[in-house]
Structure formats: C-alpha cells, structure tokens
C-alpha cells in the first residue's frame, strides 16, 4: 500500500489511465477483439465461399467435435496427424536441436575471442535473421532430390542420394529449423555464461575441477533458469512457425504438416473460417499453457533472485 501512495504522489491515477488509454485501445482493437471474434466464430460454420458465407449459423461445438473425432484423427490430413507431427518437430528441432547445439557453441567459445568465434557467431546469426522466403528457397535447392547441392556432394562421395522431401520430410524441416533458429539459444547462453563471475571459474580451476565437473557443478546450476527460459521460448516459436510450409507445403501426403499449416489449410485454402477459428482457439490454448509456464518460471526466478 505504501508503494501505491508513492506512485500516486508522482502521478494521479486518472492521469495514469489517460496516458495508458491509447495503449489499451490498440491492445483491445488488435489483440482482444480479434481473439474474442475468433472465439465466437469458432462456434459457427461461417465460410468465405459457398452458402454458409451469407447465412452462417451457430453449430455449437461441432467444429471442436470434428477436430477431436478420434476414430479418424490420425489419418493423413487430419488434426491428430498434424498435432503428432508438431510434437516431433518441436521436440526434434527445439528441445533436442537448437537448445543443446546453442549451448554447445556458447560453451565452446566461452571466455575465448578471435576470428573463429566471430565467424561462427556471424554465420549462426545470419541464418537467424535472413528473410523466410529467401531461406526457404535456398533449402529447397539444397535438399532437392535430383539437383540439390547436398545430394550432388553425397553422390560425388559415392554415398548415393537421399530423397529428403519425399522420404524424410519431417526430418528435413527439423534439420532446417535447427539451422534456422540455433542462433537465439547460442546468444542467450553466451550472455548467461558471461554473467557468471570469473571468480567462480578461477576458484573451480584452483580446486582442480575437471571440465565436466566445472560444467556440472558451476555452470549448470547458474544457467539453469536461462535454459528453462530458452526452452519455453523456442518451444513457443517452433510450435507456431510457418516457414517450413514454404519448403514442403506440409507434404507429401501431409507427412510434414504441422498445426499451424493445418490451420492455414482449413481457413485459407478451404476458406472455412468457422472450422479454422476452432483450430486457432485450440492453438491459442496450447500457446497459453506454454506462455503460462514461461511466466511462472520467470516469477520463480525473481523470487529466488
């Protein structure tokens, strides 16, 4: 309460609201309103074309029931199939790919300077900031079955070629996403390592700790909160990313279709906004759980810190 009084002395509450009003207005207009709108139309059969475009009707939970029709939801092109693909994609590219790789690069160059570090960091960051379409095109060319760079190299090495986009589409977009997003984890861990006081390091060295012991007993406990933050953030991003669509289109026969592509297909290819909205609501719910996890972990850290 005491704190509140201090703030009131600086700025009357009404004035505060006045200054916040534009922000609230825009948040309401561009975030809250669409959210509520999507939620409402997810209970209708509204579409962009066809008879239900002019005369939409409330259909209750039908869109959701259709989404979770377990008798067929693992079939190609159904929601369960997309959900499973997303799970593999997020686990493979974010949890098992980006985070450990980013940590490994950060550790390898910890307390080191020099051209090699600059080169690695620049290249990784470049992969992260290039525009989606350019990157997708490059990867299509890189992994193409007949003319791809990788297969040309493999053939010249006598290893034979691999049909990435047809035989292993999910693996292909997973590798792509690791390449694409490792920079974030690398930068975050690099900063986290930099925040460890050098005295901890030197003490460990003097005590004769092996590098594994140093990692396990000094580094890991200190950067654990950062690992958590990193994992939650990249899980959220990977869950929502749409760039792989530009490479595989979700195919062949929906083997690399993730939930975000599924939403796009229902809403913008079939032009069924009602059903698309229902998928979007489910996606938002999953995002909400992930984001809550992130915020809770931040709060816990603040409590400890």
């Amino acid at each position, binding site marked *: 309460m005491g704190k509140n009084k201090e703030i009131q002395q600086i700025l009357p509450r009404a004035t505060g609201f006045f200054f916040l009003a534009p922000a609230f207005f825009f948040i309401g207009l561009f975030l809250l309103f669409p959210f509520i709108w999507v939620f409402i139309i997810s209970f209708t059969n509204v*579409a*962009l*074309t*066809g*008879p239900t*475009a*002019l005369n939409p009707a409330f259909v209750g939970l039908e869109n959701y029931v*259709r989404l979770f029709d377990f008798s*067929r939801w693992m*079939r*190609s*092109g159904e929601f369960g199939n997309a959900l499973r693909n997303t799970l593999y994609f997020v686990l493979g590219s974010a949890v098992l790919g980006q985070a450990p790789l980013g940590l490994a690069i950060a550790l390898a160059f910890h307390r080191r300077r020099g051209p090699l570090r600059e080169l690695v960091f620049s290249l990784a960051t470049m992969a992260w900031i290039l525009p989606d379409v350019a990157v997708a095109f490059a990867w299509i060319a890189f992994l193409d079955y007949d003319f791809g760079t990788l297969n040309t190299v493999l053939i010249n090495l006598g290893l034979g070629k691999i*049909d990435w*986009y*047809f035989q292993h589409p999910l693996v292909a977009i997973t590798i792509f996403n690791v390449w694409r997003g490792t920079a974030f984890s690398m930068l975050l861990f690099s900063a986290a390592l930099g925040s460890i006081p050098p005295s901890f390091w030197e003490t460990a060295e003097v005590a004769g700790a092996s590098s594994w012991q140093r990692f396990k007993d000094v580094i890991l406990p200190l950067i654990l909160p950062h690992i958590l933050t990193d994992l939650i953030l990249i899980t959220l991003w990977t869950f929502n990313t749409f760039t792989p669509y530009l490479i*595989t*289109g979700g*195919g*062949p*026969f929906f083997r690399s279709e993730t939930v975000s592509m599924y939403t796009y297909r229902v809403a*913008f*290819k*079939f*032009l069924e906004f009602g059903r698309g909205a229902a998928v979007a609501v489910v996606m938002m719910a999953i995002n909400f759980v992930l984001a809550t996890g992130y915020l809770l972990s931040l709060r816990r850290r603040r409590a400890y810190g």
Partner: protein
Amino acid sequence: MRKCFKLLFVIGLSFALLGIATFAESIKLTVTSRAVRGGVNTLLVQWLEDVVFPAFENWMKEQGKDVVVEFIEFGGTDEALKEQYALDLKVGRGADILGFDGFWIPEFDAAGLVKPLDEIVGPSIWEWEGWKHIPPSMREILGYQGKVYGLPLGTDVRVIFYRRDIFEKAGIIPAGSGLRWQPRSWEELLDTARYLKESLPGVIPLQINAGTQMGEATTMQGWFMVLLGTGIHMYDFYSGKWYAKHPGILEALNFYKTVYIDEKLGDARTQLIPGARARTFELFRDGKIAMLVEGDWFWRSVLAPGSEWGLPNRNEVVDWAMMPAEEPGAGYRGQNFVTISGGTGFILNPNTKHPAEAWALMGFAFSREMQLEFQKLQPRIRARDDVPVIGDPVMSEMAKALLRLTTVRPMLPGYPKISYEAQLMTERVVAGLMTPEEAMEAYAEALKEIVGEESLIIVE
C-alpha cells in the same frame, strides 16, 4: 474581403472542375488471370497485351474516351488464384476483369462474391453482337442457374498424350509408319505400359493424375477419366445425388493401385511432391514419361513451341489417343471411350468502378476479329461458332472425336469440396496409406458431412 472570397471560390471551383475532368477522362481498367509472359499461359498475355489492349484503347479513343488497360500477371497455382479471388472479392477489391474457372462460379455465387453480367452492367449487355454466336452449352461454362457470369475462352477435352518417339523406339509403332496407337480397354492400356516398362527402363510408362498436390488437375485429368470408364460419374444428374460407395469407385481405385503400387507402371512420387504438375510437364517434355492423361491445354499451351515447356518438334514426337473405358461399352452412358470438359474465361468483378467500360473491353476481346487473332497464336475450340479452329489439325481432330462423348462437372456449390475429397482418396491409395476399400469408406464419410446422407448413392 469579399473580393478575396470570390477569388478563392473561383480558384476552388476551377480546381474541382479540373479534378472531375481529369477523373472522367482517364479510366484505368485492370485484368488478371493465371498467366505470365514467358511462363504459364504466355500466349494469353501476348494476345491481351500486344493485340487486344492497344486495339481497345484506340477504339475507345475514337469515341473520345481515355482508357488505359493493364494486365496483372499471376504466376501461382489455380488453387492459389482462387484463394486470392475469394479474399479480394470479400473486401470489395480485385481487378475489373478476372480470369475465372467455370466450376468456381456456384461456390462464389452462393457467397455473393460474383454476380451475373446483366446485374453488374445492366440489360444493355444483351445488345452485344456476340451472343448469337455463343451457343447455350458455351454460355453454361461460366454460367449458373441460367445466368451468365462471363465469357469463356473455349472448352476443352481430355485424352492420353503419348510420345511417338518412345513408342517407336519400343517397337509399339513401326518407325515412320504414320500408324497410331489406340487402346480399347484398360487392360490394353496397362499392357502397353507393362511392355514399355520392360523394354525401356528409365522411362515412366504412364502418369495419370492422383493426389491433392495436383489439385483440380487430379479430379479432371485423373479421377474422372478413370471413373467414367467404369460407367459412372461422380454425380448422378437425374437423382441429384453423389456416388459415395459404388463398385465403380472401387474399380477405379484399383486401377490406380495397379498403376502406382502393384506394378509401378507410374511414378507416385512425381504425383505427390510439391510442384507435381510442373515436374510432370518437364518429364514429359524430356521424354521421361511415355503416356500422360491431360487436357488439350497441355497440347496447345504447355507443349506449344516457344512456351515454358514447349517442344519445338511437338507435332512429330507427340500424339494422342482416346481414353478407353474399362471394357468396350462399359464406360459412362455405355461409351467405348470417355472424356470430360471444363472451361475457363473471364468474368466481371462486381466491385468494378467502370462496369460499362469493363464490359466494353470484354465484348471487344470476344469479338470475332480479336478471337481470330487469338486463334493465330493458340488454335483451339473457341466459344464463338464463327471462329473455327484454324491451323492445328490435331486440335480440330480432338474436338471432332471427343466433343460428342464429353460430359461436365456438376455446377454446384458443394462440388469443389467433394472434388478435394476425391483427390484425397486417390492420394491415400497411391501413397499406400489405405486400401481402395478403406479410401472409399473415408470418402463416403466425408461426403456425408458435406452434403448429408440423403444426397448420397451407396451401392455396396
């Protein structure tokens, strides 16, 4: 002070008048279609930009109107264009004249996104000289429930295109004999494919479209061409119901299974990868595919010398045959051979700010003179009966042999969704995900959701 106001008033008025004058004088019309100069449908762009637009602009100028016409190229797939149109029209935008596929009309009309020509322009459209040369069957291509939404560029038919050079190499046709190949049943078609597979490894004997990547090209060039050969259509025009489960559907799916799974006479991968259609065109051009079921668009636009996948010696190395029914006489309406027609053309955007000028442009482009100009670039079956197929005996021959055997898709708002389900059904079979029985079961389930059980024909 008063003088000052007066001066201001005069200046203001003259600016306003000037504004109105310039506004009224210069009218800009836009036309869009899936066409790119030097790429897909390049001949359409050449015809419009090099012939029609300059002539139209001159004609308008003679009438004292300053009209500028611009073509907006669209290089994506048909499906992407449809998506773009739906979004554009919904927000009241888009080009004044839109290149449109006839079977989209019912779905768009039901949503109020497109309107009949006379509702947009007024009854004056019926004064156009061209109507008496456009027979009802042609008006129906871009029509729905007796109303006309646009003018078609023509209609088409579907056949098996085959490479004469490959057939001669394999000894199916004696070289230089001028003899032609024509299978009489599925078995004869498959036997030819088997023989090619044995004698010429590295050549894909037969591609018949399957899967969702190919979009409507799967339904028209693939599914319909096989299904009609079993004696049924996707839709029964008499009862107004859809075939959901039928021995014919199973036979058709088993044909796919024979081609792509059991005997590998076709390459399923080429059907299912992104960019499947472009890849197929490329392989046929390069002599890696021996037989391909396609529409006459493939002949007159895709393979036309100078086009993106053009073959300079097209007339020597490519020939065509009619698609046989499963057995002679077992096809749709008891036919020996089957085919199906569709058609594209141009419609008016109901949101156009210049309906009169836009309609004038359409009427001008579909005048006999302009259509004859198009025939010089790309001979085909045109909508006008006073515009013959000139300079391409192959096109005339196809039209003569097949227009009497042809059928069309049902013009219903639900068709595009059911068409997608048919594509999905073939995909599940050729990818080996489902047996023909399972795929048909899933198809029937989906149809039930789309049109309701009472609109289905189920024959176990």
